[in-house]
């Protein structure tokens, strides 16, 4: 600190331009793509990070900006963040180049009771721990209570099938004149995850291997029927809570964080329940966010302290209560949860405990090609469902793209596909 004035001027200028700063050595910058909305970020700052010694600054960013910043800082050789929080898939492209292995932290946290399979995901396909699981979520269905009277006879929302969902939405369209089933198929919606984690596992029992199988063909034909009774604005929806709240949509599938607002605002108006089942079971995809330490972190000790703090059982419970993400450690949720979060917790529990559940894990080993992997499913959807191209031909063509992608990355199969030696094959 030989030039205190100029340094503080630089710090102020950098702060002005929205950048992170390397102010004092003891400050820990926690850089995250999760819990971005101002209410959630405030909860993190004021509640969840409370009790940590030293100064921790919580900074959030959109996922694409996060990816660019991580790479840019590596290239520049100047790291600002000491700990980063992001989804499994968002951390994946940064393995090796931008993240440092944290086997020592994993060893320290051995008594937290984080399930083995989650810790395994945190290795991101390598032999060393790359991130520590932070919190988890999944996708659920939400329906407006007005829709329940149109449920087909004998159908129960908690054990719904795709055929029943189609009939239900058709009943609504016939009776009310409006198609009120909605999907988040907009530009920033999570529709790709619907196909990878729900549709394919339910209809084919796999994601990659049976991509163009007879089962997949039958599934896409069912999807076309489902789309015919879905709101045509679905290709504009990004967060289903908005059309749910406006009444434009009565039945929706989405990530719990993206329907939470509707449930929190009007808990009496909605029901939440598991996604439907297909011929091969009830596909579902757990979402895992992790905490990692970037290469050359300016304050590694501070970063480790943040990870230890965020994975404490009491912090995990507070996270569920305050922001609606569920614990990765084994704890029982308290009874006094907010009604909206209680609804979500119920649907998540019903999904996880469903007898026909088929767990579909997040793609592993795709590296920076995760975006193009999503594109395969979205392109297939566009061509078959939106442009009405012949199912078989489209599946043949897209299967080639998928096969090339798998061979380029050498990614082995992940559940529910059968384990493979080498790149996951497309049959």
């Amino acid at each position, binding site marked *: 600190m030989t030039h205190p004035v100029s340094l503080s001027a630089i710090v102020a200028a950098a702060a002005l331009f929205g950048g992170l700063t390397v102010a004092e050595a003891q400050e820990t910058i926690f850089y995250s793509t999760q819990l971005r909305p101002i209410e959630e970020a405030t909860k993190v700052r004021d509640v969840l990070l409370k009790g940590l010694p030293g100064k921790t600054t919580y900074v959030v960013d959109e996922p694409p900006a996060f990816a660019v910043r991580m790479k840019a800082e590596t290239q520049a050789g100047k790291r600002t963040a000491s700990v980063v929080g992001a989804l499994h898939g968002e951390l994946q492209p940064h393995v090796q180049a931008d993240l440092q292995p944290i086997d020592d932290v994993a060893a320290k946290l051995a008594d937290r009771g984080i399930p083995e399979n989650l810790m395994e995901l945190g290795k991101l396909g390598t032999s060393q721990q790359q991130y520590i699981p932070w919190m988890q979520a999944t996708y659920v269905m939400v329906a407006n209570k007005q829709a329940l009277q149109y449920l087909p006879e004998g159908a129960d929302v908690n054990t719904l099938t795709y055929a029943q969902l189609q009939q239900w939405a058709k009943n609504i369209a016939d009776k009310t004149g409006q198609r009120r089933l909605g999907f988040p198929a907009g530009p920033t919606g999570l529709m790709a995850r619907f196909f990878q984690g729900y549709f394919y596992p339910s209809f084919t029992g796999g994601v990659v291997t049976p991509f163009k199988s007879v089962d997949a063909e039958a599934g896409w034909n069912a999807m076309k029927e489902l789309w015919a009774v879905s709101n045509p*604005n679905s*290709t*504009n929806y990004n967060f289903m809570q908005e059309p749910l709240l406006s009444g434009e949509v009565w039945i929706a599938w989405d990530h719990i964080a993206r329907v939470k607002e509707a449930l929190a605002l009007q808990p009496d108006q909605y029901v939440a329940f598991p996604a439907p089942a297909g011929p091969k079971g009830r596909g579902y995809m757990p979402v895992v966010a992790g905490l990692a330490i970037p290469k050359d972190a300016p304050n590694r000790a501070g970063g480790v302290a943040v990870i230890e703090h965020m994975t404490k059982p009491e912090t995990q419970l507070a996270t569920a209560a305050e922001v609606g993400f569920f614990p990765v450690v084994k704890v029982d949720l308290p009874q006094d949860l907010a009604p909206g979060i209680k609804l979500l917790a119920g649907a998540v529990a019903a999904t996880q405990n469903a007898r026909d559940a088929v767990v579909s894990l997040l793609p592993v080993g795709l590296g920076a*090609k*995760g975006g193009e992997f999503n594109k395969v499913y979205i392109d297939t959807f566009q061509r078959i469902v939106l442009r009405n191209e012949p199912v078989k031909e489209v599946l043949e063509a897209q299967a080639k793209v998928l096969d090339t992608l798998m061979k380029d990355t050498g990614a082995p199969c992940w559940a529910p596909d059968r384990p493979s030696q080498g790149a996951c094959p497309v049959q």
Partner: protein
Amino acid sequence: MPARASWIPYALIAPSVVFLGVLFIVPLVQTVWLSVATGDGISLENYQRMAGDLNFSLAVRNTFLLTLVVVPVQVALALAMATMVTKLDKGRDLVLWVLTIPLGISDLAAGLAWLSLLQNTGYLNSALYALGLISGPTGWLSQETPWALFFSIAMAEIWRATAIVLVILIAGLQLIPKEFSEAAEIFGARPWTRFRRITLPLLKPSLQSALILRTVLAFEVFAVVYALGGRNFPVLAGEAYVWQNDNQNYGVAAAYAVLIMTISLAATAVYLRVLRTRPEQLP
């Protein structure tokens, strides 16, 4: 003195040249490099992927269609508005100020404003419902109503960016000496003839600038389309964004950027040639 004057202009222009060089030429070269550089040397792989993508031909078609519809309408509207404004005696500044309001609004904000008009629960549907013309919320912006969607985007673009053409044309109109028109009037030329034979030819340099600016911007159209149509209406700049951000493939995104630049340069060259003005034709 003359010896000293010779370097002064260069010294004065140097900062902007350096500025452009650092912040424009260097990224441009980098983008071109990014679009042709692949794992093993230089290849056109990214361009092949771009051209083979399912949205590519649609994006090209939509971008050109939008430009072909929007730019002529904007120029015609701006010409009419500019002629009217210059004829005003009172309240000219106020009218001009109101007409140029859209200029001060960011394009994404303009897109969102139009979205609130046109979405299912928007003002248009409320008005139509109140008039008894529709029985419930009607979608105008879905992929099932491509023409309504195209019309909405074209309307929003026309509303948003006519003002920039207007400003350029008004400046041009003010440069034309009144004497020409007065002389023609004395010889009995009617307003339409005067407009066609005097105003329009003398306005050519301004028209050229306005057309170049608007066409180049029309080929880059993005935010309004993104707000209203999302992925339902692929355009070139939107595809570049999707490849960069969603697909995380910077090479193909760069190929799109280079394509947009090539189209813009070609359009500029055409305008420079077709609307060329010889010095003796200037007012």
